[in-house]
């Protein structure tokens, strides 16, 4: 098109500027133009050919590049598999770093729960700066049949650093038919909070009833079997047999000193709501000399109460969670309630008393707590908790019971707690908590500023 225009315009221009050209001259001109046209056309053709060739080359280069990319990708897959040889058999290791600053109005050493004889790790802990539970957890699949986990807790106890085996157990992996067997030392499936490590709790301290009955945690050496029914509704039943050597059992029973039976049901309501309910029962028939701290009286003789007899605990737990559109990352709410009741029948002896003082003992202790934790925006959550205990213990010698801390002194222990926490990531948390603690007559105000951080492998998101 352009070429034609060019020829035409030249012809027109020539015809106008030289109106007096002869026919011969015109023919010559036409011939010259024709030659010019031909030579241009040839050159354009040559150019087009070269362009085609270049395109071909480009296509080839592109193909080679794609092949190389593919090879790289394949080699990447190969490399990842290569890597899974030496070090990846190392177990998952995680460390919990936990520390706090605590301030109490009352002397923490004077702490008591009237009607409950405290044992285990029950207590307020140290005032001022201190380390909490520093935990080291090592876990892995042992082989295709078993999973193993060890949790060591390191903490200071009266100026000495103690290493405690918190949990060390093996567990079957996919045994079949929903059955799982666990053996070793583990947190009992009693209640809801008991199976969780302290760092997973929503408050800096244990509920009063956990403190009163278990010394914060019920743990023992033994076996657990649990079964999950093949139903849409989650239904789990299980049982534990354990040594019964540890608080709140005690003594050195040969064989099985305590057993637990538990059942949990749970499910979802739509996408946003989920719930669980548990019933559990713990029984130690043959407790022989379970010692605990008595009613503290400054400078008094170190008389230690010791219980021998039978103990039964029954528990109910309810948990409800809500998250908008089922996505808990940005906002979520958790409501939690647990109730425990303990029946005991036996004899209380005051060790180191002369002459040896003892009394029959018929204990009836119960307590509950309810808490709500609301994550109102990513990284931030707040929570409230209310605790309440009651007891009605009787025996042949009420003075001895009082000395053992088993007289409720006409007081109903209760506590209000509020907390605010900031979790910059899944692995770190800083918490401020305030308690108004009416465990005993002198009401105590307690403040905790606590950090709980985890290093290493990613922990599980338990319900």
């Amino acid at each position, binding site marked *: 098109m352009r070429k034609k225009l060019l020829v035409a315009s030249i012809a027109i221009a020539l015809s106008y500027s030289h109106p007096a050209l002869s026919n011969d001259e015109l023919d010559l001109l036409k011939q010259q133009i024709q030659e010019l046209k031909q030579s241009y056309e040839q050159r354009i053709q040559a150019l087009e050919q070269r362009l085609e060739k270049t395109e071909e080359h480009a296509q080839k280069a592109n193909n080679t590049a794609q092949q190389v990319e593919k090879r790289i990708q394949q080699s990447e897959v190969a490399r990842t598999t290569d890597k899974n040889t030496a070090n990846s058999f190392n177990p998952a290791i995680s460390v919990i770093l936990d520390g706090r600053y605590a301030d109490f109005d009352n002397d923490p050493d004077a702490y008591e729960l009237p009607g409950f004889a405290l044992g285990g790790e029950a207590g307020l802990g140290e005032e001022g700066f201190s380390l909490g539970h520093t935990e080291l957890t090592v876990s892995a699949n042992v082989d*295709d049949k078993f999973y193993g986990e060890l949790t060591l807790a390191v903490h200071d106890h009266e100026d000495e650093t103690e290493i405690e085996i918190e949990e060390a157990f093996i567990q*079957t992996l996919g*045994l079949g038919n929903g059955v799982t067997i666990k053996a070793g030392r583990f947190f009992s499936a009693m209640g809801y909070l008991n199976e969780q490590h302290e760092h997973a709790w929503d408050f800096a301290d244990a509920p009063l009833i956990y403190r009163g009955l278990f010394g914060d945690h019920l743990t023992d050496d033994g076996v657990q079997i649990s079964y999950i029914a093949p139903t849409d509704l989650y239904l789990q039943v299980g049982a534990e047999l354990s040594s019964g050597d540890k608080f709140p059992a005690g003594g050195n029973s040969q064989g099985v000193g305590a057993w637990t039976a538990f059942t949990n049901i749970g499910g979802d309501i739509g996408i946003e709501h989920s719930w669980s309910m548990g019933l559990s029962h713990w029984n130690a028939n043959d407790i022989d000399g379970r010692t605990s701290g008595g009613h503290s009286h400054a400078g008094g003789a170190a008389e230690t109460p010791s219980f021998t007899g039978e103990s039964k605990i029954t528990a109910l737990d309810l948990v409800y969670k809500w998250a908008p*559109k089922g996505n808990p990352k940005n906002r979520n709410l958790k409501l939690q309630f647990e109730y425990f009741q303990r029946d005991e029948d036996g004899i209380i002896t005051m060790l180191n008393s002369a002459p040896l003082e003892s009394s029959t003992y018929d204990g009836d202790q119960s307590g509950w707590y309810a808490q709500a934790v609301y994550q109102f925006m990513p990284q931030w959550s707040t929570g409230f908790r209310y605790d309440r205990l009651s007891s009605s213990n009787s025996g042949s010698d009420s003075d001895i019971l009082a000395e053992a801390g088993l007289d409720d002194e006409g007081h109903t222990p209760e506590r209000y707690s509020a907390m605010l926490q900031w979790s910059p990531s899944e692995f770190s948390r800083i918490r401020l908590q305030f308690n108004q603690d009416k465990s005993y007559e002198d009401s105590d105000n307690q403040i905790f500023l606590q950090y709980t951080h985890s290093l290493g492998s990613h922990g599980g998101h338990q319900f």
Partner: protein
Amino acid sequence: MFIYGIKKLALIGFLVLVSTTVNAALQVLACEPEWGALAKSLGGHHVKIYTATTNQQDPHHIQARPSLIAKARRADLLVCTGAELEVGWLPLLLRKSGNPNIQTGNPGYFMATDYVALLDKPTELDRSHGDVHAAGNPHIHLDPERVLKVAKALSQTLIRVDPENQTDYQNKLDSFIKQWQNRIHQWRKQTDSLKGKSIVAYHKSWIYLQQWLGLNELAILETKPGIPPTSSHLSHLLASMKKTPADMIIYASYQDDKAANWLSQKTGIPTVALDISPAKDETLIDWYEQLLNRLIKVQQ
């Protein structure tokens, strides 16, 4: 007392024996909707699918809820992303399920990321870089080519778990591949205008999509992976957006939209909320087409 304990154990043993599951269809537990949808396309009426998450849930922040344990207990096949996307809850489900079918290493344990190469593999593993995935970026389902690879592997897995219906699975795979490749061809043409467009994303959720479409990622709203945007990071972004503005701001519909909206208001750059996974009962093709259409629409 001891006898009482034994009785309990015997009772449980009895319950185990009577609980024989009689279910014809293969029970599939899919961690994310995309794998649920893919399993549906490849399995048809031979599979019964339960999807553990919706496209409104961040699949990383799920808890091992009782309902999920109940599903894991009965599953014949587990279809998940892997590459640590479900690290917070899947190991717990496996351990609590008491189900041998879906344990690691068994045929019923299918992780999609095991079958494709991953992008963004961190060279340094340090949590100061945020919640990084050691194996690489797990959001592979946004690349149609990788989906094709996963489909082939998943079909083989279905055959291994349920060999009786082999020919049916093979046919379903063939027809899926045919449809999918046709679509890939169309999508390539439709999205030509998106090539070279620059984006700001909330999280590094889209790198496979970016690579496939030829999008250019200018910035990420999160300070670091998994760490919500801070005001200083955002004001820094605002300054750089004023110099070199992006064409759009992309976030997943389950992600917090505050930062994206704020930046959009300040700069006039349009935002687009994308469903990172198919909705309930949506096919992979419908979902991906819609996602591409939204991008094309925003860009026009």
